[in-house]
């Protein structure tokens, strides 16, 4: 099993393909997990992390104003990139219904998220217990102080 193929690809074209651990770079299906790079792709965005996180009554240790004060919020955690990255956080219901920016009727115009180097925090309410968000982290630095 090859993790890197440089040369003829399954369709006969020449290119470069790399695969995730456990997948073959030559024959692996482009299913969103197995192939990490394919030179035939035309539009590519790097994604640092993707996940689903749930609302909880938690502290926000990165915030010096309230480092230990718990509140209802959802924390999306990802490996530290060394900078604050661009992030998308969207409410997801039942694992397959993705909302636009809307999360809660208390914030009909959209909820805000704080972005740190390895976490984002989106504020919420006790009524959000059991709710989840889908998040994607892009390795693009957000200008910040």
């Amino acid at each position, binding site marked *: 099993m090859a*993790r*890197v193929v*440089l040369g003829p690809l399954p369709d006969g074209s020449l290119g*470069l393909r*790399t695969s*995730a651990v456990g997948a073959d770079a030559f024959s692996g299906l*482009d*299913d*969103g*997990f197995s192939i*990490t*790079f*394919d030179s035939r*792709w*035309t*539009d*590519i*965005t*790097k*994604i*640092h992390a*993707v*996940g*689903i996180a749930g609302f909880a009554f938690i502290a926000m240790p990165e915030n010096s104003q309230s480092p230990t004060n718990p509140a209802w919020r959802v924390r999306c955690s990802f490996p530290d*990139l*060394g*900078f604050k990255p661009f992030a*998308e956080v*969207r*409410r997801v*219901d039942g*694992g*397959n*219904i*993705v*909302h*636009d*920016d*809307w999360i809660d009727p208390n914030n*009909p*115009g*959209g*909820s805000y998220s704080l972005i740190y180097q390895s976490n984002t925090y989106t504020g919420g309410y006790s009524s959000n217990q059991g709710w989840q968000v*889908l998040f*994607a982290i892009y*390795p693009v630095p957000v200008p910040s102080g």
Partner: protein
Amino acid sequence: MARIVLGARANGDKGLFVSPSGVDAMTAADSALLLSATSKVSQLILMGRVTVFPATVPLGLSRSPLVFMVSEFNFASVIGHTLGPGPIRPSPPFAATGSSTCTINENGASMTLQSPSNLPATFQVYSQAFT
């Protein structure tokens, strides 16, 4: 010092790595590289706009993809605004009666978009899956 590494780097990652002048591609941090072809990447596979709801869009995938949806709003009635309708964030706009949603059917076979306010919406579907 290597400017190009094809294969395994010092940290065990495998792929194609290119570093700028003066930086060793074998040992540099990912953030210092010009190209890292082992990073998790995703392709924008579908982008579109819907105006009639519900709208079902075939995808033909076997896993639920990353989907982002943005509602539009017509600012024509806002004094000084001359650009007409367009995407708005945060979305939905303040005048909407509820959230627009995208339901991914059968692990990516298709998706159904809904907008309770019947606001036009744009969507982006990436090859990266989350299930």
